[in-house]
């Protein structure tokens, strides 16, 4: 940023709640996928592709303004869309798009709760149906 003569703006402190929300979303999604992975190991192969897909569904390397105006709220349903746009705006002291940030924060909360709920639901069976066999295979086999 210094190269382009840009310094973090005074609004940069606002990234802290954004990072916290991002962490919560990651925890929720991660718990869900982790629980799913314990049961179906397919998840670990599908996950890299899923994350790549998710990245291009998020305005990370393109601006949200590239998306037509009427599709913006739909884009903001992706929690990371509003969070990353907000992160960038806060760092550079640009106006925040409160509408999409609000939608994204709500869907982030929903996704987190859904992930935690799914984790709790599947937790009961971990050691028995999920991890038992995989862990067993990792050990030395009887001849």
């Amino acid at each position, binding site marked *: 940023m210094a*190269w*382009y003569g*840009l310094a973090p703006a005074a609004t940069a402190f606002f990234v802290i709640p*954004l*990072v916290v929300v*991002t*962490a919560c979303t*990651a*925890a929720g*999604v*991660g*718990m869900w*996928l*982790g*629980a799913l*992975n*314990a049961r179906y*190991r397919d*998840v*670990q192969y599908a*996950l*890299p592709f899923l*994350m790549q897909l998710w*990245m291009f569904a*998020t*305005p*990370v*390397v*393109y*601006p949200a*303004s*590239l998306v037509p105006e009427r599709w913006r709220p739909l884009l903001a349903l992706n929690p*990371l869309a509003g969070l*990353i746009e907000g*992160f*960038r705006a806060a*760092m*550079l002291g*640009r106006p925040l798009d409160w509408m999409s940030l609000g939608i994204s924060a709500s869907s982030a909360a929903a996704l987190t709760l859904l992930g*935690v*709920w799914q984790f*709790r*639901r599947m*937790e*009961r*069976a*971990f*050691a*028995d*149906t999920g*991890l*038992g*066999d*995989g*862990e*067993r*295979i*990792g*050990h030395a086999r*009887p001849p």
Partner: protein
Amino acid sequence: MVHRLRRTARRRARAAGHALGLEEFRHYLQDQLLKDTDVMSMAHSVEVRVPFLDHRLVEYAVGLPARIKLAGATPKPLLLAALGDVLPSETWDRPKMGFTLPFAPVAPPAGARAAGPEPRGRMSGAQGGGARLGRLRGGPAPLVAGMGARRARALRRGTGQGGGVSRTVSSAADGGRGTADPWMVIDAAHATKAIDLAELWHYRDLLYFLTRRDVAVRYKQTVLGFLWAIIQPLMSMVVFTVFLGTLAGVPSDGIPYPVFSYLGLLLWTYFAAAVTRSGASLVGNAHLLTRVYFPACSCRSARPWPPSSTSPSPSSCSAA
């Protein structure tokens, strides 16, 4: 005076026994017994769980006063009080056996040898064992650490201190069995309950150590260390700047494209790494989870090798 001295001596002896028990737990159990159990059970294709090592039960037992655990001349009085009603007397009312090598089936006693080799006679011992095992299996689920009402009451009366035991009673709140049938059911949490933040806070030191371990391992044996956290999005930024920013001419809201994409990638890399790693965390830490924290139905998981229900994934196969 003499009476008081004797009482003090007894208390000291109990405290020493308590400390000894903790040391045994920390070293002998962890380094020897669990390993032996693992090796022996695996050699016979049996999946063994150790329900008595559920952290809640261990914490509860450690917190009990020594006079309950080391009462009288009978060894392990608490275990007997808890399970004497549930298990057949053949299992608990027999002389203590050490971990000696089973010489008997290999080298029969002199009398048997004089009568000539008779495999059938030698086998009878094993058959008896099988029958006993069968009875054990047919009995009530051994995973429920129950305490007979009569014995629990006697124990409480005998020690004159109900606090510890009645905690077991109250923890049996499930199903409204009431205090007459004090069972402590070790079970996984229910899905309807949200994440128990109080429990999470209670185990904050565990969380701290696991986090520290992960951070320490993360950039181990790297020259640049934690700088990778900055360099990784930086490298993606260069790639996207060249292909999207310069060649494809993607707009960036008037912000220089490298700055624009780096800020986005910084948060995205964090999110993607967090999701990917937590997605693999349960399977990666299976050795921690399956040993101690076990589900209610794990008694069923003593299934023959190889497990037929799921097909092994290629990665875990290559690890074997």
